[in-house]
């Protein structure tokens, strides 16, 4: 893992001192609400329905056991004993006190963490493929570049007051597992024939009320030029992005207004000035970071002198293995998903106890390292296969082994109207109702891979646009309604889901989902997963299945 050097450490300490001063001035009436708001947002501090919420950055989703234990400590000491892992791989504490936020930041700084730029109109926390470094299909590990981009974007003086928030994601594999086409900038690892590492650059993706897929603006950018090119994009955006209307202020709108070719030309012109300049990344920098991100030394079979024993025949264990254990690059190792999707607890939530258990498991079985996925689960990237049963038994005891990874009940969900001041509707009760309806494992396994994502408002924190089934909470005459989309997907064939028709009341949603999967079950070919059936038969059979055959027809 990357470890802070003196400069990084000093920066977060200075940040804490600076924010503490701002908070004191605010609480003392010397800093107005309007002047303070952008400052607190740049420290991830929102004012929510019940209490302020603090969003803590987990750069590219990478966590050490020590850091996760600190998150558990913060949950216990400053919150109500739990935290919420988000689709952007951050963690949110929903019940903090405003005046304690500087103390929390000081505690975070002691384990090389912070909340810098987790909100506000600036470059947000950078996300990355959760399988970086261990995926079998990896082109190269993007994390050294993620870290370089993190350092560059942290307090980047030119880009602290952009027209709107700005999100960057990296993918390192042949398969995109970071939803890079849904971000302002997506960077996808590429190599030239002679092995030079670089990126294909996608721009102008985003969710929100105007969802758009990012377009490829450059098929190959040498890795050395990453910061120069990012600066060129951000510079063009900062100067020319719209500031008169916050709903038209994201990069995607500028790209659309200028056309992709027009935007590309502006960026190229800017890059010409910067290319080869001071921000060119020296090979030694990348090499030094590669060493920090190197995988632990993997033992071959028979590690610790203990003979490999076949795992006991256990149906629960084998179900879990089928769903929550992913193939690792090393044949004797596995990648384990610790599920935060147990029916009845809000998706992505973890109690302090669960965080500590996950930290212990990581320490015992995964070289002290975890990842936070954008599906709101935790992942152990370096588990020797022979310890899987032992690990599973502990995970089960703490409710971290729900065997539903990639299935319908592994649904993604924002905190919604129960917490969030932006939400139009609640999302957690709807998520729970769906989980309860599909709680039977035999049914769930029969349905196979199916991604359901739910947002409580158009801001799309629940990533509903890219759900195979998406649910969006909307407000109609002060009542909560839920719009359903179908056919969204992330990955190499990214698509934005399409609305199937009029919205539903919350209580009808489980039945609607049942009708949708009913159409799939009736029409699927053997071995065909939900999204492939959808692509083959289109949206109409699903509309008919949900609204009745006569719906929308002109008599």
């Amino acid at each position, binding site marked *: 893992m990357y470890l802070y050097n003196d*400069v990084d450490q000093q920066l977060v300490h200075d940040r804490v001192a*600076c924010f503490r001063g701002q908070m004191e001035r605010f609480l003392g009436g010397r800093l107005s609400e309007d002047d303070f708001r952008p400052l607190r947002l740049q420290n991830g501090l929102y004012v929510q329905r019940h209490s302020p919420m603090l969003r803590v950055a987990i750069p590219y989703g990478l966590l050490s056991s020590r850091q996760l234990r600190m998150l558990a400590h913060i949950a216990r000491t400053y919150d109500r004993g739990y935290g919420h892992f988000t689709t952007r791989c951050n963690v949110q504490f929903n019940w903090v006190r405003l005046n304690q936020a500087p103390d929390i930041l000081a505690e975070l700084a002691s384990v090389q963490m912070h909340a810098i730029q987790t909100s506000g109109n600036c470059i947000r926390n950078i996300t990355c493929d959760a399988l970086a470094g261990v995926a079998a299909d990896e082109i190269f590990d993007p994390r050294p570049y993620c870290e*370089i981009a993190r350092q560059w974007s942290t307090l980047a*003086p*030119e880009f602290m007051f952009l027209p709107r928030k700005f999100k960057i994601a990296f993918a390192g594999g042949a398969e995109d597992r970071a939803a890079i086409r849904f971000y302002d900038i997506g960077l996808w690892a590429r190599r030239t024939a002679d092995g030079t590492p670089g990126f294909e650059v996608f721009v102008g993706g985003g969710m929100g009320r105007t969802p758009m897929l990012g377009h490829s603006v450059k098929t190959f950018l040498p890795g050395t030029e990453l910061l120069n090119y990012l600066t060129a994009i951000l510079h063009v955006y900062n100067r020319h992005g719209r500031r008169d209307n916050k709903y038209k202020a994201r990069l995607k709108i500028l790209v659309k207004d200028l056309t992709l070719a027009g935007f590309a030309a502006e960026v190229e012109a800017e890059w010409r000035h910067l290319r080869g300049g001071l*921000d060119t990344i*020296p090979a*030694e920098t990348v090499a030094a970071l590669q060493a920090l991100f190197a995988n632990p030394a993997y033992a071959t079979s028979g590690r610790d002198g203990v003979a490999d024993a076949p795992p006991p025949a256990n149906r629960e264990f084998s179900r879990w293995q089928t769903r929550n254990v992913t193939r690792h690059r090393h044949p004797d190792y596995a990648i384990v998903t610790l599920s935060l999707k147990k029916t009845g607890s809000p998706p992505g939530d973890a109690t302090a106890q669960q965080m500590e258990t996950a930290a212990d498991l990581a320490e015992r079985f995964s070289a002290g390292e975890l990842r936070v996925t954008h599906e709101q689960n935790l992942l152990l990237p370096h588990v020797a296969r022979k310890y899987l049963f032992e690990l599973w038994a502990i995970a089960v005891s703490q409710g971290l082994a729900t065997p539903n990874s990639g299935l319908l009940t592994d649904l993604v969900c924002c905190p919604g109207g129960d917490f969030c001041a932006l939400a139009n509707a609640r999302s957690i009760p709807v998520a729970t109702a769906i989980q309860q309806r599909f709680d039977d494992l035999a049914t769930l396994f029969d349905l196979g891979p199916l991604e359901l994502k739910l947002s409580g408002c158009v801001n799309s924190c629940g990533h509903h646009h890219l759900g195979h089934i998406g649910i969006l909470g909307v407000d109609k005459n002060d009542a909560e309604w839920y719009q359903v989309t179908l056919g969204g997907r992330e990955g190499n064939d990214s698509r934005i889901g399409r609305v199937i028709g009029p919205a539903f009341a919350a209580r009808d949603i489980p039945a609607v989902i049942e009708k949708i999967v009913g159409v799939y079950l009736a029409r699927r070919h053997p071995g065909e997963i939900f999204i492939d059936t959808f692509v083959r038969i289109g949206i109409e059979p699903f509309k008919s299945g949900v609204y009745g055959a006569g719906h929308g027809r002109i008599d």
Partner: protein
Amino acid sequence: MAALINRHGLVAADPWQRIADAAELAVAPGRHLLLPLPLWTAHRQALAGRDRALGVWLRPDDEPAVLRTAIATLALIAVDFPCFTDGRGYSLGKLIRERYGYAGDLRAIGDILRDQVYFLSKCGFSSFALRADQSPDEALAALHDYRWSPRPGGSR
């Protein structure tokens, strides 16, 4: 009147008279005139040579490239921040300093608060005309909010 932190890091009186439009220019008594870009373009020949210095102030959507040929003659370039959350001026500062090589005084004017002066200084701004309610001493201290400076090439 707004306090000024000058390029020497001192709280000082502002000798410049900021001109908003042609009407103000017609009655301008000041010796040091800070002109908006259109007035500077139109009148700099006529005003030059008299016993006064000329500076130019830019709006966030002005194009600083037009200053390029005359940039060395300018005693002051100011960038206006109509609202501190409008970050376009940071990019103008970078361009004026780094691309057009301006070595004179580059001033942030308008809605300038102590909590932004550190970032402004890192974009090349050398003096700061603070918003009227801002304490110049606090703003001076805030120039050192971080002991760290951005380093190029992603290497710390």
